[in-house]
């Protein structure tokens, strides 16, 4: 049994956080989320289209007993993100927040300056802030210092499925963080998730790789196992990497 994760005093048995976007329908989404074992799922907020209402996204998530993590997607600066956060708190009755600010829709790179500004203000307003950010060790330290409950550095660009491209920087972030590190974005395969967990990430956030799989429900299982496996490996000490061969069997030299 792995150690449990605590964020802002809340205990999590699962270290796999999930997004709710891009699933073929809400029935598949609910089944996949349940199968993943996730206890925290993100969602976005948008203006209601009065004459063309969306499916109720909340009911399948709440019915499955999963905690809500609204995001500020669509915010291009700190002011918009703070407004989105306040709307999310009013709409969903939670002060947990995935803070994300990306001014450029092409690469969806998080804006570090606006994110730090918004994080500081939102913490002051009582939000539990989990900021999506670059894998920048200095930025992550600043976000921690202004009171973020965790940091969520990217593995690779959102939806790119490129894996842990930011490896060298994530290692530094994990080494010096005093809040949980959740690797968010870019995780495209269970092996990427396992790798992040083996490195010592406290959790991963996965959306596209599960939702866009041929069978999202089975892929959710694959990610659940990968995250558990990676964490177990981290907790139990991976053997050191060597350049030179080190024999696993005794070299008895019986042929001499």
């Amino acid at each position, binding site marked *: 049994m792995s150690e449990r994760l605590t964020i802002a005093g809340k205990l999590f048995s699962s270290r796999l956080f999930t997004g709710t976007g*891009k699933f073929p329908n809400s029935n598949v989404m609910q089944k996949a989320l349940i199968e993943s074992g996730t206890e925290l799922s993100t969602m976005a*907020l*948008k203006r209601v289209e009065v004459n063309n209402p969306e499916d109720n996204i909340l009911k399948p998530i709440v019915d499955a007993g999963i905690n809500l993590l609204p995001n500020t*997607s669509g915010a291009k600066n700190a002011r918009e993100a703070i407004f989105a956060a306040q709307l999310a708190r009013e709409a969903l009755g939670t002060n947990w927040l995935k803070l994300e600010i990306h001014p450029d829709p092409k690469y969806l790179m998080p804006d570090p300056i606006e994110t730090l500004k918004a994080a500081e203000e939102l913490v002051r307003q009582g939000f539990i802030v989990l900021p999506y950010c670059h894998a920048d060790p200095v930025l992550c330290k600043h976000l921690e210092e202004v009171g973020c409950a965790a940091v969520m550095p990217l593995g690779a660009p959102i939806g790119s499925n490129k894996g842990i491209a930011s490896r060298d920087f994530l290692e530094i972030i994990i080494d010096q963080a005093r809040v949980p590190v959740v690797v968010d974005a870019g995780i495209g395969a269970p092996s990427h998730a396992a790798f992040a967990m083996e490195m010592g990430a406290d959790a991963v956030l996965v959306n596209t790789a599960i939702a866009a799989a041929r069978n999202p429900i089975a892929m959710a299982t694959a990610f659940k196992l990968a995250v558990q496996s990676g964490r177990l490996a981290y907790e139990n000490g991976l053997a050191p990497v060597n350049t030179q061969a080190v024999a696993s069997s005794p070299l008895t030299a019986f042929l001499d």
Partner: protein
Amino acid sequence: MSNLITIELNTVAYRIERIHSIHSFFSQYKVDTQGCALAMNNQIIPRAEWQTRGLSDGESISLFQAIAGG
């Protein structure tokens, strides 16, 4: 003074009676507001105030809901 006023809900115009509160407007026009948050002039109006907040001619309501996202 006319008893009818024009308001906008997320860019859709409604011609309604002046007497409406936010709450009674949603009730009469059967707008589902479960899990929604509301803002007017970029100020959030808490749900608890919807019963008492009246509507004036030309006002715009922005109503937001949760949707799927990562």
